[in-house]
């Protein structure tokens, strides 16, 4: 399968990429890792007239830690996150887990975090992770650069707050405190398949052992990744325990709105969403030394 014809432009700086995107408007798409875009083009699900390749913009190839923020540039590969020096720290356990299960190890050497967020696939891994971690995305538009909270960034399936002529430059994750742990749980039929269901969780504890903050999100559970606000509400202020986990899991199963397909029925997938949130919470609390 060969994609429809297009014009190829290679940008060497963020300014150049932005100028080309402004010039070509809705005809143009950004080409970063290409691991979702190129298959979509091959299936003719996407037919951009112009591709603006940003892979040679060295300024966008960064993973930086500073001012309480982890910044991941638009062409930083999934594999760079997987191999980051800090990825083994407990506070980053959600990112640790997800960085090992996105697609497959070869695809992760091209695929990017920011590209995955911009693609906003209903079964994306980074989208649910960004929700649980309360990330933000830096977007450059005509009026300048703005920082968009992930909840506002993810609009609908394959649709984000990045409009025509705009470009997402980086993803920002707040650095969690050291009493934080997370977990990413995903069920897939085989390596590289879309998730049947997936859950991202991140919890922070107070000194007295109660939950200070919680992030719970699902993927493959509706038009795009979704925050389970009810589970977060249930968790905050409480001491970790089996009943608490069950309540959060029930909220997740209730929130999940999947479609039936070859991977399972609606009832199965809703149940699975709850099971994965429970597993994730148990693992995250376990990583904080709380065995349930």
């Amino acid at each position, binding site marked *: 399968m060969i994609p429809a014809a297009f014009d190829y432009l290679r940008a060497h700086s963020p300014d150049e990429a932005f100028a080309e995107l402004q010039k070509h408007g809705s005809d143009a798409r950004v080409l970063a890792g290409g*691991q979702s875009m190129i298959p979509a083009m*091959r299936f003719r699900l996407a037919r951009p007239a112009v*591709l603006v390749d940003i892979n040679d913009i060295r300024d966008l190839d960064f993973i930086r830690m500073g001012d309480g923020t982890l910044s991941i540039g638009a062409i930083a590969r999934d594999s760079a996150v997987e*191999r980051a020096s800090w990825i083994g720290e407990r506070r980053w356990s959600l990112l640790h887990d997800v960085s090992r299960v996105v697609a497959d190890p*070869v695809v992760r050497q*091209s695929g990017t975090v920011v590209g995955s967020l911009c693609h906003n696939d209903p079964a994306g891994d980074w989208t649910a992770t960004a929700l649980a971690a309360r990330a933000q995305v830096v977007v450059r538009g005509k009026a300048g650069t703005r920082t968009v909270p992930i909840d506002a960034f993810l609009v609908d399936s394959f649709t984000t707050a990045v409009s025509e002529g705009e470009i997402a430059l980086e993803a920002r994750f707040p650095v969690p405190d050291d009493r934080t742990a997370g977990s990413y749980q995903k069920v897939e039929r085989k390596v590289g398949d879309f998730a049947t269901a997936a859950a991202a969780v991140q919890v922070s504890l107070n000194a007295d052992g109660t939950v200070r903050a919680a992030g719970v999100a699902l993927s493959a559970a509706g038009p795009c990744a979704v925050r389970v606000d009810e589970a977060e509400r249930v968790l905050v202020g409480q001491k970790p325990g089996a009943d608490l986990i069950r309540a959060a899991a029930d909220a997740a199963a209730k929130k999940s709105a999947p479609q039936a397909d070859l991977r399972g029925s609606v009832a199965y997938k809703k149940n699975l969403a709850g099971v994965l949130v429970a597993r994730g919470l148990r693992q995250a609390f376990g990583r904080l030394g709380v065995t349930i």
Partner: protein
Amino acid sequence: MKVKVTVNGIVYARDVQPRTLLAYFLREDCGLTGTHVGCDTSSCGCCVVVMDGGRAVKSCTMFAVQADGHEILTVEGLASGAALHPLQQGFWDQHGLQCGYCTPGMMLASYALLKQNPKPSEADIREGLAGNLCRCTGYQNIVKAVQQAADKMREPVSAGR
């Protein structure tokens, strides 16, 4: 569009459509048919090549124009003259192939893996090759082949690259 891609140390200057995929560029424009196309949908890993010395890429999911000005290593570039690369020798010695269709992709994905991790455990190899499918071997001998290559490449005087 005119492109210059260095493949296995040789510059190939060609005129291609932007939509030409790297796998087809290598096979049809450069005549290097060692790179195989399996699933053609980024799932099987038969088409894996190495870009700029260390990044394994599925060449069915990259455009040739993206490789303009870059270096590509394919299976044809592994051996030095008559001397097989340790990965090739490993696959030979350990019977790491039967039909051979997945083998170039297996070797190039392993090449990138060993660059990142010169001393992989068995689990590291199995995880590292999770994006490469083999329908013949059951993987046991592929893992042994990569282990042999890793051992060989860590020897003080390596025969490999």
